[in-house]
């Protein structure tokens, strides 16, 4: 498809898969307020995913809508980063991931809200407010857990350590995106890293946590559909019903 469709799919897949994982927390959160909050975050991301995938389908021009893209692509066709597809070991890891992800999404969407592509700009402008809340929510939890009890400190650090190998992938770019950046359509990902680091490192420091060393084995490949083994199971759940009823409408 045209580059902008690919770009919108990447952003949309990130949001969709992250929403799917957050949805799994509902009824499993440590307190009722958090069930509400995580559902809310999941809904924001699902909303972003729907707009982005709808737009990707339009620009692709093959008549695919958001559901065709979500339910009828195979694993190798999904181009989300691997960070979002992981199974959370516990709530600490979930919050570590949310911090890492939202602190990346926020400057991304802020930049994108000035995109030369008016649809992407509009989607991003709406999402900026949502994601600012996500980042704040994650920050509050990372502070509480990092600087809470010895047990929570230990778990929070383990969560940060677990997601850390997935950081680099967030800032990877390629020729397609560089061309879109030149056209003023896309945001330069590597350029987001400084703000991300300043923010995340500061939160970790305030939470009395250690910033991990750069990963010896950084994850990569999600953008080209090379996922972790967790992804297939996620898609089996996501898609099974639709795949079982070809052509049905819901």
């Amino acid at each position, binding site marked *: 498809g045209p580059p902008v469709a690919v770009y919108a799919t990447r952003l949309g897949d990130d949001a*969709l898969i992250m929403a*799917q994982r957050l*949805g*799994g927390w*509902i*009824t*499993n*959160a*440590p*307190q*009722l*307020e*958090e*069930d*509400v909050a995580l*559902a*809310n975050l*999941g*809904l924001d991301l*699902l*909303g972003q*995913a*729907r707009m982005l*995938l709808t737009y990707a389908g339009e620009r692709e021009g093959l008549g695919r809508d*958001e*559901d065709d893209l*979500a*339910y009828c692509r195979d694993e190798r066709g999904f181009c989300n980063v691997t960070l979002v597809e992981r199974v959370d070991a*516990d*709530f*600490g890891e979930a919050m570590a991931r949310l911090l890492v992800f939202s602190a990346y999404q926020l400057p991304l969407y802020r930049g994108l809200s000035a995109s030369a592509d008016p649809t992407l700009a509009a989607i991003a402008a709406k999402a900026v407010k949502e994601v600012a809340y996500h980042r704040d929510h994650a920050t509050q939890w990372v*502070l*509480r*857990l990092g*600087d*809470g*009890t010895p*047990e*929570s400190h230990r*778990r929070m650090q383990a969560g940060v350590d677990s997601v850390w190998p997935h950081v680099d992938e967030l800032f990877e770019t390629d020729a397609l995106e560089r061309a879109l950046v030149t056209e003023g359509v896309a945001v330069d990902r590597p350029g987001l890293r400084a703000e991300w680091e300043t923010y995340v490192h500061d939160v970790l420091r305030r939470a*009395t946590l250690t910033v991990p060393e750069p990963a010896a084995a950084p994850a990569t490949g999600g953008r080209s559909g090379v996922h972790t083994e967790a992804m297939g199971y996620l898609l089996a*759940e*996501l898609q*099974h*019903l*639709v795949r079982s*009823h070809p*052509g*049905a*409408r*819901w």
Partner: protein
Amino acid sequence: PDGASALEALLAADERVEPRDEMPDGYRRTLVRQIAQHAHSEIIGMQPEANWISRAPSLRRKAILMAKVQDEAGHGLYLYAAAETLGVDRADLLDQLHTGRQKYSSIFNYPTLTWADVGAIGWLVDGAAITNQVPLCRCSYGPYARAMVRICKEESFHQRQGFDLLLALTRGTERQRAMAQDAVDRWWYPSLAMFGPPDAESTHGTQSAAWGIKRFSNDELRQRFVDMTVPQAEVLGVRIPDPDLRWNAERGHHDFTQPDYAELLRVINGAGPCNAQRMAHRRRAHEDGAWVREAATAYAARHATGGSG
């Protein structure tokens, strides 16, 4: 007893009892029990529907379902807050739920086997809940009545969404229609049972009525639900699984087969298909979250006093 005459005066004037008002112990106890059970039902009721969040068959339906389950968590929060105005606290109430000393609605002890069950829960279970709850919007205890106003508004939205979900199925493929009918077949009688035992066997009714907590009898509400639901079933194109269901022109109501109250009693007493699973899920989530709640408390305490840990 203290508070009884004050309560009577307020009831006579059709005014609301507020937290600071004196009230009889029995009135307070009854309300705590009822509001807590209602709150517990909201949070246990999240489970059968959350079971389909990861598997919802369109992103639009997934969003609707997530929002609905989120609303239920929110209802739980309002209701625990309403209960807390009566001098109990949420942690204690949750403890009573987790140890089986307080109940939740039996309906949530049935499994959601197919996507159509999500629709049937919205249409029938929420429909029955609304029928039960609308009168509570005028109940004598202010905080409960106000919580119910907000809850009923959202529930009625959920009920329409459930109806809409089923409508998409009954207007869909043959397999989708069968799925919808199957769900209605399984959820119909449990929904009727949500109104409780028949009036002849009901125990709490009279005093609650006198206190302005319950305004209609179980059988009255059940009849209202049936009368409301039958024409909706016709629009949907699903058959209600009751061969004796028919309009009785003389009564101005539908005649219908009563649910199996022996089954209701078994499910209330723990022998439903999912009682053990629902409670185990709830307890596990609570236990898994203990370290998080402890950390939040420790952090808040340290930062409230300006201490540095």
